[in-house]
């Protein structure tokens, strides 16, 4: 088996009082063991919904996985029972969230929260779990780990909390770590610490990481392979070097150009005009066509397929339809 995780035509819809919101609408990707996959996109593109779908944590109602497969080590998580999911969550697949304060329970000590998961999944006794816990805190670079283990979340700073979250997530040696905007809530200097820590841990533990972020800089630093999402679909997929060297999809190009660069001296920023379409009234054809400067007639009529383009690359765009077909 080549892939750790294979997502095939995943569809997660939200049934709201105003209508059906297709938050994730046919997403495909694969993740190899030990690989870091970056998922980039703006708010509402479906990147976070994809990640909670994998863990089957979509709030229901209003949300539901309505189609597709999520193969984790060959097993379809969409069809798994709730008790099977419980033994997978936190054990085989762990997750860290954007806001470390809200994902830690304020009334329990850090040690208690981490050892809870260890005791549950690894069948260790209390003492062994606590030892493991101290070991994990040391691994993520928390000073005075022996004392910190008995402290409460409010005694930790933002950066320390995110480290504790990472320790908790990695405590059961998961095969896959889903990191949803792990550095977005942090300050730049703390973000740099966490990025270095995650890169370092990945080398030590060889965990596959699914990194969800809106920050192209973070992706460039951490990911091996990147998928770009727009309006619930994958629009481009490529190895990180290829993607940044030669972005193909007009949306990817637009995203890269619209961020002011540190060494650039352009007077005006390039913009992607308009805004993300209303998910209740998606435009016909390619969802990006109203904002695309290369839009052609066909773009307004038909949604392009996500076509293979070379070895490790896929693009969903009519501009590249022909080129891809030739290869």
């Amino acid at each position, binding site marked *: 088996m080549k892939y750790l995780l294979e997502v095939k035509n995943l569809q997660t819809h939200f049934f709201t*009082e105003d209508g059906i919101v297709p938050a994730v609408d046919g997403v495909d990707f694969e993740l190899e063991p030990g690989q870091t996959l970056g998922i980039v996109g703006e708010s509402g593109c479906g990147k976070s919904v994809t990640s909670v779908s994998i863990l089957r944590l979509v709030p229901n109602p209003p949300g539901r996985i309505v189609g597709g497969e999520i193969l984790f080590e060959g097993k379809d998580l969409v069809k798994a029972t709730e008790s099977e999911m419980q033994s997978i969550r936190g054990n085989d697949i762990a997750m860290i969230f954007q806001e470390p304060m809200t994902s830690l329970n304020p009334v329990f000590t850090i040690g208690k929260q981490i050892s809870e998961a260890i005791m549950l999944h690894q069948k260790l006794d209390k003492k062994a779990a606590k030892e493991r816990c101290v070991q994990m805190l040391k691994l993520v670079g928390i000073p005075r780990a022996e004392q910190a283990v008995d402290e409460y979340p409010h005694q930790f700073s933002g950066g320390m909390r995110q480290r504790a979250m990472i320790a908790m997530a990695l405590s059961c040696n998961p095969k896959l770590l889903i990191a949803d905007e792990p550095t977005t809530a942090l300050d730049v200097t703390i973000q740099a610490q966490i990025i270095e820590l995650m890169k370092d841990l990945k080398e030590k533990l060889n965990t596959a990481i699914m990194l969800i972020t809106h920050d192209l800089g973070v992706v460039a630093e951490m990911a091996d392979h990147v998928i770009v999402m727009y309006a619930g679909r994958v629009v481009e997929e490529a190895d990180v070097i290829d993607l940044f060297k030669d972005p193909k999809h007009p949306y990817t190009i637009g995203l890269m150009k619209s961020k002011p660069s540190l060494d650039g001296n352009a007077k*005006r920023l390039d*913009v992607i*005009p*308009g*805004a993300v*379409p*209303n998910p209740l*009234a998606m435009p016909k054809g390619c969802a990006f066509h*109203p*904002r695309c400067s290369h839009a052609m007639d066909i773009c307004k009529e038909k949604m392009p397929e996500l076509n293979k383009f070379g070895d490790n690359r896929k693009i969903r765009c009519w501009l590249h339809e022909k080129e891809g077909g030739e290869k």
Partner: protein
Amino acid sequence: MIKEKGQINENQEENLATSSKVESPWTIVGRRLRKNKLAMIGLVVITILSLAAIFAPFITGIPRDITNLANTNAPPSSEHLLGTDSLGRDMLTRLAYGGRISLTVGFVSTSLRILIGVILGGIAGYYGKGIDNVIMRIADIFSCLPFLPIAITFVAVLGPSIYNIMIVLAILGWPGIARIVRAEILSLREREFMEAATALGIGDFKKIVSHLIPNTMASIIVSATTGIASAILTESALSFLGLGVAPPTPTWGNMMYDAQSQYVLKNRWWQWVPPGIIIFLAVISLNLLGDGLRDALDPRLKQ
């Protein structure tokens, strides 16, 4: 560059709400409320009761206070749909007239309560510090007062009348509203649009009246709806104790007071069951409507 700007405009218009209708926050609340069946039933019932009270003279055509000693304590019949009371007066007529007093007491006392509560709560919340402390300690004192003894004393001194009941309900009830308004304003005060108002040079009075109070309306309305229900109950209770509105004016409460004896309870159900049911209906409808409004108003606005 100019061309680019034009393009932005064009696209943005496309992305706006497709309907050309302006949706104010209140129309959204109305739409959500209409979807809530129980709340709508409550609204319908309370509307029917209010209409019945307003058009009381036309319901049976029988005058309210005309006694008929030849036809006392008559059970329901085609002539008197809900029978007559111990003085031969038509029960249905008196029930409809009773609604006038009961509902008026509910609405007026609650309005008074809101008026006092909003003014004092608004001042406390906006100015904070010392003023806040003084007002809220007074509110604490008022909410410590045991309701019934105070109400009984008050009515005993000033005499039982509909106005005195309204006043006592308002005076003893405002701290609840004041606390809600103060708490809301404390959190609204920190919102950036209030800072923006300061930066624009908007005066204090206008900031309170035109920015803060409208944003507290949602919680006030919810609390007022359930407040009316409890005022109706209190009026009934006071009237039942003989402290409410003086006879012969009927209220739902004093109609039940008239049916207090064992014998009546056992043998003349039509003298106490209908007013009981009506009080129950009015209170439960207002509470259902209040709950519905709470859901419709919260989370306040879709973002």
